[in-house]
């Protein structure tokens, strides 16, 4: 009954794996035995630890890291996004409402804007306005600040995305607040640049990275709303299970968001603000990005049997998890011949 201790389970030969399987089953049998028959507490604990460790190693599903990254990019992320487009759309609407309110408030009541933004913001904005009032100089971001700005932008965007996702656990309210605030700010700024007469200039600066960046923020917000939804409407699941299910979906979106923000942060610092590039190419780049991005998100890895949008979210999530699992199993079967560890 005493099972051999064994460590470092990851790099075993096929033979050793089989041996481990046998020993695991013996230890498990021993543990079951020890739980019903009084063979001593110390022994029961030892077997418990042994079986726990062996179980974790034997039953974990292994992914090959390199391969699964490509698979994630080409299949998992766009698939998860299509399944959950409703939530992303809702996040978009929340931002849009915020922007609308921001525009209206800014147009009617300047004091509120100044109070809302705070003095630091105002002085920064005035400094930028100052730079722009000088003829010929239209540089949104001075050269020497660009590398650092890129890093800071990416960091800040990642933080906001994470927060938008995480605050979903407040039944989605926190996420909506974050999105609304973002929209509000956008509305304020939109009004300010229009008033200063540099609107075209400003939007030419925003567009090349904004397309990707804002989409990413909407997706992160959508992921947060999914968590909120799962708590409010768990359907036939326990809330705990529904939340975990939503979490599995959300993390896929979050990983994609991270990559998108990495790209956007680089463009935002090194392409968008460059004054030598005229407006037309900037808008053209933004348009091209939109086509590519949405083409990718909507088409990549499409298999034709996606239930996206026709099912209630809970059912859609379960269907999505199931289809990913089925796909992995199918591939595992097809690739089994090449894999020496599969008997």
């Amino acid at each position, binding site marked *: *009954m*005493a099972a051999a*201790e064994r460590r470092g389970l990851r790099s075993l030969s096929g033979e050793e794996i089989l041996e481990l399987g046998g020993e695991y*089953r*013996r230890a*498990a*049998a021993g*543990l*079951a*035995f020890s*739980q019903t*028959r*009084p*063979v*001593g507490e*110390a*022994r029961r*604990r*030892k077997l*418990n*630890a042994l*079986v*726990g460790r062996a*179980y*974790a*190693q034997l*039953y*974990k599903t292994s*992914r090959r890291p390199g391969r699964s990254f490509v698979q994630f990019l080409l299949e998992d992320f766009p698939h998860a996004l299509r399944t959950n487009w409703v939530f992303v759309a809702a996040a978009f609407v929340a931002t849009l409402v915020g922007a609308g309110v921001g525009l209206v408030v800014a147009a009617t009541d300047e004091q509120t804007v100044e109070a809302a933004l705070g003095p630091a913001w105002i002085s920064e904005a005035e400094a930028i306005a100052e730079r722009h009032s000088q003829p010929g100089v239209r540089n949104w971001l001075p*050269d*020497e*600040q*660009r*590398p*650092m700005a*890129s*890093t*800071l932008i990416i*960091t800040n965007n*990642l*933080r906001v995305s*994470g*927060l938008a*996702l*995480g*605050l979903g*656990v407040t039944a989605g309210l*926190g996420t909506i607040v974050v999105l609304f605030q973002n929209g509000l700010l956008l509305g304020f700024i939109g009004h300010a640049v229009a008033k200063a007469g540099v609107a075209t200039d400003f939007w030419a600066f925003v567009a090349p990275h904004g397309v990707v960046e804002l989409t990413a923020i909407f997706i992160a917000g959508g992921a947060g709303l999914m*968590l909120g939804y799962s708590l409010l409407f768990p359907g036939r699941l326990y809330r*705990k299970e529904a*939340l*975990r299910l*939503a*979490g*599995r979906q*959300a*993390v*896929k979106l*979050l*990983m994609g968001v991270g990559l998108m923000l990495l790209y956007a942060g680089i463009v935002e610092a090194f392409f968008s603000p460059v004054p030598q590039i005229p407006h037309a190419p900037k808008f053209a780049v933004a348009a091209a990005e939109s086509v590519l991005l949405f083409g990718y998100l909507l088409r990549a890895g499409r298999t034709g049997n996606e239930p996206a949008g026709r099912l209630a979210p809970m059912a859609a999530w379960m269907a999505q998890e199931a289809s990913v699992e089925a796909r992995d199993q199918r591939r595992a079967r097809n690739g089994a011949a090449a894999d020496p560890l599969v008997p």
Partner: protein
Amino acid sequence: MRSIEVTTPENVPVVYELAGPGSRFLALFIDSFIRTAATALIALGVGSVMPDVFAPSQMAPWLIAVLIAAVVVLNGGYLIYFETVWNGQTPGKRSLKIRAIREQGLPLDFRAALLRNVLRMVDWLPALYGVGVIAAMVNSEGKRLGDMVAGTVVIREAPESVEVHSPELSATVQLSPVGVDMTLLPLSVLSADEWAVVYAYLQRAPELEHQTAMHMSRQIAVPLLGKLGVPAEQVGGRFHSFLVLLTREYERRSDA
């Protein structure tokens, strides 16, 4: 001590003891200390090699950006990285012998590590893990929000090697033949309580003085022999050996 139970596909429940808030906070403190120290080291190292790093020059902006990126990656990725490659442990968690695992008893993967650590931002609110502590107190499995969303739980590691005085081991020293054919004994007549006594004795036997062991084994064995229908004289006074062989036979039959 709170614990969770995971049932393996063999239908065997494995018990994991949950880590308490004290060890979790301490682990986090150690991790924070390491991160801060590493950040300070980077700053000091760069500062000593290039004292004028912040002076305006052609390369400075890039260098500063790379430094900031390094510090951000170090601080943001540290927990996620270690929890992914160290099987749910960070240096802090390892030193306190706790580990994050998935609810099903499986090791943490990258996605779970990412999710539970992104949710840290919310658990931290309003300050010093206010939300997380309340959540963990309310939750029966001691989970903060990140654990709930990621489906993970933090457990106490089982001690590396438990001292087990196995009957087989203690027997090798003094086992002598007894005049009983063990395979013929009707073991089912013995109750669970009686087996408990036998095992409890065998576990303590190595620590007992010889005289005491002789006396106790006799006291335990004689009533059992009576129940099994074997005359006590047949064992020839080697009651300890008889008890060892009895448990071996018991386990052999249970295994079969």
